[in-house]
């Protein structure tokens, strides 16, 4: 058994062919340990959801290697793939669109159990479904079994999505913006349930979010990676990354986030970037992709060479200026 559950090296993904070719992931290297929470943060269009979909094997990768439990995912046999699908589950962003509207909650949870022959008799299935719904806090269970998704609130739907992902006792879960569509007052309870489940079942999480505040809360014991234009620019243990951010992009993000505290939010230190929007993926600047917005960009190195993600186990940065000093 490999030490790391997931090992990614030099992973690339392109969409389109020929002239329309766009590289959305441009060489990623990281690993996720068992029981670890790994958060990925970035602006829309940076490739974080694509990466999540590749990890869940919904999307294929174009280049590089993705090893799950030591096995290359591309080369999995049909039989291995079946157990991979059992081991890896994904919770989608939009709970309103990810549940089948014509199935009852019971069917939604029971189908994967039947498909993978985990339970055979109706009684067993019923028991297992009840146990799982109870686990995610949808109680009393009897009230929910015969309901359809439209009869539930957003928070409850998201709990059903979590329950469905748990049915097969996965060892790895990809969670895509699980709370962004949920009311503020309920977010914490969803995140806390996920954390509790992790403790109980030793699940590793790949948690995708655009909100560094949520990442900081959810991955307190884990690691956060900051992504920009298909590359990881900074990766570190959560506290280290938040309180000792090194990459100018991370610094800008941390400074820009409004805080729910009038005094703190107005006195927060800002990190100004150069004017301008995110470059399009079709024409990524040569050298460091961040050089169009980076106030530190130096001639010639930042314009010629793509920086590598280097540093210690706890904290790695992809920036020439940081790494040269």
């Amino acid at each position: 058994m490999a030490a790391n559950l997931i090992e990614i090296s030099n992973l690339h993904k392109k969409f389109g062919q020929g002239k329309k070719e766009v590289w959305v992931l441009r060489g990623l290297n990281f690993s996720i340990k068992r029981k670890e929470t790994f958060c990925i943060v970035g602006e829309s269009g940076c490739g974080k959801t694509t990466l999540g979909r590749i990890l869940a094997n919904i999307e294929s990768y174009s280049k590089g290697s993705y090893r799950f439990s030591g096995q290359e995912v591309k080369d999995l046999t049909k039989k291995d793939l079946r157990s991979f699908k059992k081991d890896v589950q994904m919770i989608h962003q939009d709970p309103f669109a990810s549940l089948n509207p014509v199935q009852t909650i019971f069917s939604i949870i029971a189908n994967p159990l039947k498909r993978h022959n985990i339970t055979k008799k109706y009684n067993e299935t019923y028991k297992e479904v009840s146990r799982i719904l109870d686990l995610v806090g949808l109680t009393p269970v009897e009230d929910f079994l015969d309901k359809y998704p439209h009869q539930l609130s957003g928070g409850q739907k998201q709990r059903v999505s979590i329950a469905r992902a748990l049915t097969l006792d996965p060892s790895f879960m990809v969670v895509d913006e699980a709370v962004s569509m949920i009311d503020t007052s309920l977010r914490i309870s969803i995140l806390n349930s996920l954390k509790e489940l992790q403790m109980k079942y030793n699940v590793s999480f790949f948690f995708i979010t655009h909100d560094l505040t949520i990442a900081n809360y959810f991955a307190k014991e884990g690691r956060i990676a900051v992504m920009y234009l298909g590359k990881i620019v900074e990766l570190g243990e959560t506290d280290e990354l938040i309180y000792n951010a090194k990459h100018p992009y991370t610094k800008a993000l941390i400074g820009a986030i409004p805080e729910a505290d009038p005094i703190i939010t107005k006195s927060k230190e800002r990190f100004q970037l150069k004017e301008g929007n995110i470059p399009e993926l079709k024409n990524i600047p040569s050298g460091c992709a961040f050089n169009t917005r980076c106030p530190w960009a130096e001639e010639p190195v930042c314009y010629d060479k793509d920086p590598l993600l280097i540093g210690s186990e706890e904290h790695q940065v992809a920036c020439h200026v940081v790494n040269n000093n």
Partner: protein
Amino acid sequence: MMTKAMKKELLKINDLSIAYNTPRGKLHAVRNVNLTVHENEVVALIGESGCGKTTLCLSIVQLDEDNAQLLNGEINYYKDGEVKILTQMSERDIKIIRWQEIALMFQASQSVFNPVIKIKEHFIDTVKAHDNGYSRKAIIDKSKNLLSKMQLDADRVLNSYAHELSGGMKQRALIALSFILDPKIVIFDEPTTALDVLTQRKIIDLLRLIKEEYDFSIIIITHDLAIAAELADKVATMYAGQIVENGKTEDIFYSPSHPYSYGLINAVPKLISDKCEGDLSSIPGSPPDLIDIENKCQFSPRCNFATEECFRDEPTIIKVGESHFVACYNYKNVPPIRRDN
């Protein structure tokens, strides 16, 4: 933000109740709301989805849905010492108020621009619709001025179609458009949702900048407490169609008096200076159905401070401090928010 002396009232909502006629019966979306907006003030309405924030703001410009019905109350708008009762105005008169006096920026503003005409036509159409004798050139000049205030390349934006602009640029162009007729009040419905962090920061900073330069009031509808903390002078918490607490931003954030405000603030994680996460907790349960309203505090089933009284009778909003109002029997038991520094 700081001028306290002699602030005049600009908009006053008196005991407003609005219901939607639905197949199941009347849905009471706004219930007995009182709210005053002063000149040069930023008021934030916060609350969960479905609490009536948007309905309230739509009724200010009389753009309610067809099945909405005004049950009681009125909205007064003060101009040059005159009172205008918006809720009783004819469609013709309200059209003059809309945008010229009170502009409303809708949620999902990304899709507000007409995709087949250039941005500049939106500016021209808006001004022409109000028929105040501007020439085309004067309008373009004014638009350019506003757009450059929003730190946009004015010429490029005016000659673009909506799809040629990024989300942040569209949002900024729309803010500029809402100022084209110098309104006295601008209502922003979720101004920064669906924008990236850095774009959101830019919009917040620009709003603050433009606020310092021009005289106008802002009403912000948001579910994001951080936006309220950033921009608002006054915060009103809405729950189940009512304003349950209303006060200065600092009062609401540091010494909330309503258990719901308290719960909301404690449910939001902070990035910096929040190392002890144990204090964060969600508010259990979900909001009530606004069709069958019982005579009790609507928040009581979810409230940790509820006593017998709360289940018997609905509390009315009372004054508990200087410009601080709350509708709760047990407001004295709500602890202040612990601060780490």
